[in-house]
């Protein structure tokens, strides 16, 4: 008997379709669980240990001008912070765009504005805010706080602008008197900004480090609006032998008066000047070597700090200390850190009680490090370090057992052999 192949074509097609479909395995099978797949993961054990062997509050040692925003605050006896913005090269001549290479002396300034961007998160704004701009040109180094603060005098006042609270949304444009620019043409112009109001004032202006070109000084060299504006960004020429530092000093916060630090019997995080906490751990070897850590919670007991904004929120994050054993000064070790992908602790300075911070990912980083080479340590710091006066305070390792920092670790001791 001879069969016609055409009659079998659908069957052949189905067979080869199944052949091709089976080239990709699909093994996932969940319908049988749990009855056919018991005892998968084992149990999770939890221990709480006094793992902190050393803790200390240290200065943040942040470089002047590296802050991501400029704090401008006038809060009575508590805080006095001002902003400095430098334009170290005000052009004395102007050249028209195009083929004409003739330089024209700048004799006229028109429509001069200083544009700045405002960050109102955490701001303390009265109904009206006045910004006073001073000419603080000086040969004094930028780190000479007292010398520069002394330049905020009435005879150096460039302009004042009063803004309604509702006008402070994103960007502010402050008119600058033409004479102030003409007086500095061909040289540097350093502007000091101070805030005042009927009540305490606190606001942050974005810095060059915190945003792309947030501050611009612009003006025309002629009333003719068809002539292009001169647009200048913050720029510092000094110190001339340290270009990175010079770049940072294009704008910076001048902290005339900071917050009082907490007592030595506490761990203090935040404040102005900024402080952070260095915390060194001794983790049992089996946690590092023999088990899988699922969760690690740092238990911190907070002490209330009622000095300033006790109900505002300060956010604290842990960094991993990368300082090796050669760095014996914890103040320096606290600066050599790496960002860890972990939890953020949100507390109010006036709060109290046990607060928790998850650091399991840091424990897993430590598994790949030798404690003999790199002490197992973290650094706790405020996310607004150097730009916010908020300070959270915690009990240190010398405190009572239920108040000192502790580490709660949940781990799985499951080890698969592969045998069914």
């Amino acid at each position, binding site marked *: 008997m001879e069969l016609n192949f055409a009659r079998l074509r659908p069957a052949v097609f189905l067979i080869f379709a199944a052949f091709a479909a089976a080239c990709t395995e699909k093994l996932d099978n969940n319908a049988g669980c749990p009855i056919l797949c018991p005892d998968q*993961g084992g149990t999770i054990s939890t221990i709480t240990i*006094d793992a902190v062997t050393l803790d200390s509050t240290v200065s943040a040692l942040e470089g002047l001008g590296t802050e991501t925003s400029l704090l401008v605050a006038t809060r009575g006896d508590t805080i006095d912070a001002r902003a400095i913005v430098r334009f170290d090269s005000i052009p004395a001549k102007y050249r028209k765009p195009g083929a004409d290479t003739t330089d024209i002396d700048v004799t006229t300034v028109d429509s001069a504005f200083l544009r700045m961007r405002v960050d109102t998160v955490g701001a303390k704004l009265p109904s009206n805010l006045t910004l006073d701009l001073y000419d603080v040109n000086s040969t004094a180094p930028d780190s000479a706080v007292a010398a520069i603060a002394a330049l905020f005098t009435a005879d150096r006042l460039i302009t004042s602008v009063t803004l309604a609270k509702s006008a402070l949304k994103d960007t502010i444009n402050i008119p600058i008197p033409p004479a102030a620019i003409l007086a500095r043409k061909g040289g540097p112009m350093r502007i000091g900004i101070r805030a005042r109001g009927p009540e305490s004032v606190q606001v942050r202006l974005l810095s060059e480090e915190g945003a792309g070109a947030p501050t611009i000084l612009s003006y025309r060299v002629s009333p003719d609006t068809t002539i292009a504006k001169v647009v200048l960004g913050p720029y510092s020429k000094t110190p001339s032998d340290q270009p990175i530092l010079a770049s940072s000093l294009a704008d910076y916060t001048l902290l005339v008066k900071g917050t009082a630090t907490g007592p030595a019997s506490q761990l203090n995080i935040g404040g102005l000047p900024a402080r952070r906490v260095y915390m060194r751990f001794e983790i049992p070897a089996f946690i590092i070597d023999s088990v899988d850590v699922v969760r690690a919670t740092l238990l911190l007991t907070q002490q209330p700090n009622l000095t300033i904004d006790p109900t505002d929120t300060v956010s604290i994050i842990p960094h991993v200390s990368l300082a090796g054993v050669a760095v014996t000064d914890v103040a320096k070790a606290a600066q050599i850190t790496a960002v860890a992908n972990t939890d953020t602790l949100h507390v109010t300075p006036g709060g109290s009680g046990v607060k928790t911070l998850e650091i399991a990912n840091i424990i897993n980083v430590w598994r790949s490090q030798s404690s003999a080479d790199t002490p197992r340590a973290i650094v706790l710091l405020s996310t607004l370090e150097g730009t916010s006066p908020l300070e959270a305070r915690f009990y240190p390792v010398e405190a009572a057992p239920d108040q000192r920092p502790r580490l709660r670790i949940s781990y799985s001791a499951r080890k698969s052999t592969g*045998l069914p």
Partner: protein
Amino acid sequence: MRHRTAALSSLAVLAIAVSFSNANAQGALSTQGFGYPPGQMSTRALATGGGIVEFDADSPLNPAAIALSSDPRMFLQYEPEFRRLTNAGSTSNTTTARFPLFSASVPIGSHASVGISSATLLDRSSATSVTREMEVGGTVSTVTESTRLLGAINDLRLAFGWAPSMKFQLGLGIHAYTGQNRVFFSQSFPDSLRFSTISQLSTLGFRGYAGSAGIMVRPSRNFGFALSGRKGSTLQARSADSALAEANVPDRVGFGAAYEGIPGSSISVHVSRDMWSRMNDLTSTEAVDTWEGGLGIESLGPRLIQRQTILRVGARYRTLPFLAAGSEVDELSFAGGIGTQFFRNRATFDVTLERAGRKPKDSEVGARERAYILSFGLRVRP
């Protein structure tokens, strides 16, 4: 600066009892323990319910079967399985691709052959993912536990067959058991900032030996009988250089009979007994000794594209070696297939479709499994 030496000495009492866990998470009736036994049958033998397996030169069970292979030959088999598991109202569909058998033999003179083969003894490929609630550090969280098992135990055989007469064949085989099981386990949590994912990979290797022997007797042109057996030696499960556990390769004995009195057709049956319980020292999932029986018919079919076809049908019953939820598992399968030759009869292509139903003997275990196994076999005489 404050400094304090932590009183960690108290932790000495926290002596770690690191729990060594077994990878039980195999999720299907047929993949418990070290996995599913494909049966070490060629596509042709599978289509006859295993009836001709004791006479089949491509199936590495009876070494006597290769004795009268008159030409050098190679055989390769591809065998995907489409499985559906139903349990407590939920269903999972899986696809497993296998290359369960390769064999080759060359004749030595006109009355003997030597052959090699590699066949899957137990295929453990499976994956499960379970989500449940778990308390971790005082917080109840959802945890997803995933287990993925890949690999198999393979039977490598070197066989010698001799046929002193056309009525009598005998053969001997030596077997080495190798292979690898890789177990990927992970435990993950939705909140990755608070919880860390656990990931573990373990690799299990196997090393075992066995010997086999078989005979085939044809007292008349219409009848044939075959008997084979395998005696297992040690079987080790190893991790890196260490032996984790040691048991024995399962012994096996099989018997087959064939009737070829109908021109162009043969009717064959087989029955076998596998002593899987000899593996019990390797596993906490109990293995049981199993029976297997099958019946099949092979007959000349119609010509297709001017080629002679061979049609096969068969049925097979067996129990699976590893208990599922404490119960033995039955497997009843029905198969049909077709084979034809190409390239001046130097290549033979067989296709078999088998439908298998699996269910636990204990009716309290409600799981049911249904599988369609497609088997493609290509035999070449170079």
